[in-house]
Structures are given as C-alpha cells and as structure tokens.
C-alpha cells in the first residue's frame, strides 16, 4: 500500500491481480449487473490509487479497507438507481461461464465462519434485515417500508441484533 501511495503502478497492478476477483464478486452481489459492477470495480481501484496515502494499517487491514471501498461504491451506485432499486438475490444472479465456484466458497476465512455462526444465533428476521442492510445499503425507512413493519420495530430488531452479534463475536 505504501508503494501505491507513492504512485507505483506496478504495485497497484499486483493488488488488482490479487484482489479484483474478490471485489468484483462483492460488486456483483450488490448490483446484480455485470456492466455496472465492472464500472464500479474500475472506480474502486482508481479510488484506492488516489487514497492509498490515507490507508492506516493501525486502523484496518488492507482487505477490510478495500472491501469497504468496494461495498460503499457499489451501494452508492445501487442507491443512484432510485428509491425503488433493490438488488436481486444472489440465487437469481446469472454469472457467465468459467467462474471459479464452490472451492473458493469453502475457502472462506475463520472470521467469516465465526461471523456466520454468530449471525445464525440471531432470530431469522433480524439476521435477514442485517444482511439486507449490509448488502444493499438500505436505510431504516426503506427497510420498514419494504417489510411493511413499523420503523421503530426495525430499529429495535437491528440494534438488539447488533448488540448480540458483538457479544457473540467477543466470546
């Protein structure tokens, strides 16, 4: 990352080669659209290039930092589609040909496994809202409207869910 901050294009290329398929999957999951995802992915690496000097290894890992940029950019794009926009669930997403499949999924990290275990301890509705919020950047208001439940109810589900999630992860 320091090399990228100094304007080393080869370093950016290395990071791209190592991480683009992962971040592309993130964009696709959020946007369900290949062209838009490619567009956002390009923007993500340009952003990394321009902001690399602000990366602080004491605050976040490289993986978390770049994933957060990718997710935020994709969510910005999703929101720009308009208030009715929502992404299609990943099961309905058509991913063309030759993609690596199950092996990569199985290789998910320990952190992912722990988070998954803790999410599965939440009640299913809360888990679903947290996932939806994470993958779609949907506001409380939009979630309440979509699920046809009172705003206060959504807020308390999520807030209680987040508190439980944190305790579970710290166990």
């Amino acid at each position, binding site marked *: 990352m320091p090399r990228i901050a100094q304007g080393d*294009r*080869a370093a*950016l290329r290395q990071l*791209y*080669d190592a991480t*683009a*398929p*992962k971040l*592309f*999957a*993130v964009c*696709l*999951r959020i946007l369900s659209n*290949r*062209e838009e995802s*490619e*567009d956002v*992915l*390009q*923007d993500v*690496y*340009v952003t990394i*290039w321009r902001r690399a000097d602000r990366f602080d290894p004491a*605050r*976040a*890992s490289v993986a*978390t930092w770049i*994933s*957060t940029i990718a*997710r935020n950019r994709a969510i910005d794009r999703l929101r720009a589609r308009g208030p009715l926009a929502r992404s299609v669930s990943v099961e309905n997403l058509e991913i063309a040909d*030759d*993609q*690596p*499949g199950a092996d990569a*999924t199985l290789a*998910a*990290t320990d*952190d992912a496994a722990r*988070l*998954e275990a803790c*999410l599965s*301890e939440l009640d299913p509705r809360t888990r679903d809202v947290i*996932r939806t*919020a*994470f*993958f*779609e*950047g*949907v*506001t*409380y208001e939009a*979630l309440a409207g979509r699920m046809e439940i009172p705003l206060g109810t959504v807020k308390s589900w*999520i*807030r*209680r869910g*987040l*508190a*439980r999630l*944190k*305790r579970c992860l710290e166990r």
Partner: protein
Amino acid sequence: MSEGPDLSARETLAAEHALGLLGAGDRAEAEARMARDSAFATLVDDWRARLTPMLDAMAPVEPRAAVWAGVERALGANDNAAARRRLRFWRGATLGSLGLAAASLAFAVLVVSRSLEPAPPPAAPPMLNASLMTPGEGSHPMFVAAYDPVRQALIITSLARPGADPGHGHQLWVIPADGQPHSLGMIAPGASKSMPMPKAMAPMFTPGAAIVASLEPPGGSPTGRPSGPMAAVGKLGRI
C-alpha cells in the same frame, strides 16, 4: 443467548454507519464525525472489521480485462485533473484532424505500453483497445473502449461529464478499413456499455479500425451517417 446491555448511542451510530443503514445526510455527518472524533472512527472501523467477513463467503469472479485497461487510463487522466477539467468535450472537430489524433494516440499508446509491467500470459486472441481523444485537445481521452474478440463485444466508457449539454448526444461509429462509418448507437455522458456485435459487424473490429463519437441530436443522426462534428476519435490497437 441471554439479553445483555444495549450498545451505547455512539456505538449504535457507528455500527449503523458501518452496516450502511444511514441515509445520505446522516452518512455524511457520520463521515465528518469520524474525521474529527478518532474514538468514534475506531468504533466504526471495529464494526467494519466485524461485518466485512460477510463478504468472504463469496466466490471470486474474474472481471474482464477491459476493467484493468480502464483503471490504467483513468490513472493517466487523473494525474492531471486540472487539464482534464479544461477539456471542453463538446467542442467538435472536422474529420480532417483524424490523422493528427491517430498520431497523438499512437504516441499515447507507446507511452502507456512502456509503463506497463510485462503482460500476463495472453489469452488468444487478444483484446483490442482504443482511447478516443478530442482532436486538438491534448492527451486525455473522452472515451475508452476495448473490443473483446472472444465475446465479440465492444466495451466502452464515456468519461464525458453528465448533464453538460442536454441538447445533444454522442453517437458511436466504427470505421473499418473501407472508410464507411457504421453506427454503434448512442452513449450517455459518463455511461459504460458492453455492446455485443452482430456477426456481420464483428469482422470490422480489427487493429487500425477507428472508433468515432459524433455530436448528434438526442435521438441520433437523422441521416444514418455522422451528421454533427466529431467529438472524439481513436484507433483500435493491441496494447
């Protein structure tokens, strides 16, 4: 699992921000607060670290090579943002300056290819790339394009600023060796498109073929040929 205490109001906000629940206004406020309140920033960072592993379960998907090409070109353009802002992109030029533009493009391609790492093992046949420049407007592309011979599709991104000229649109053309322009349709400022080519047109995308954007009425050229001034031009080549 037993009910424990709720998160503090401050941590709740941090978690909500990390999760993506805040609307545009609240989100901007949270970003500003992160900048001036490092303890709050740490809470947000911690929540991002907790939640981001949700992304790990996703199987990687290889993006097309055109994405990296687009990144590279955007880096070049951003290296001199002031000059790019000065680019008056609606200013057209005549077809007479095509030679000049091609010459400056050839130079740009040379510079770019020298700055690259050794290319990754090529998948046959290679992609063709073009940067579409406004003739006489320096070295910043208005469009970047890549033709993928495997998928027989042209991937093109407009770098023009949206909303600058609602009265006109950009129409894209391919001009193969015989010099006859063939319409590829309209592209909105700032948009990216992947355009699959019909069998009859795919053979036109060879090294040296020109991709041109002309300035046209919003619905496209009424004549079937470029009717307005040329906004940008570039030739396909292997990089």
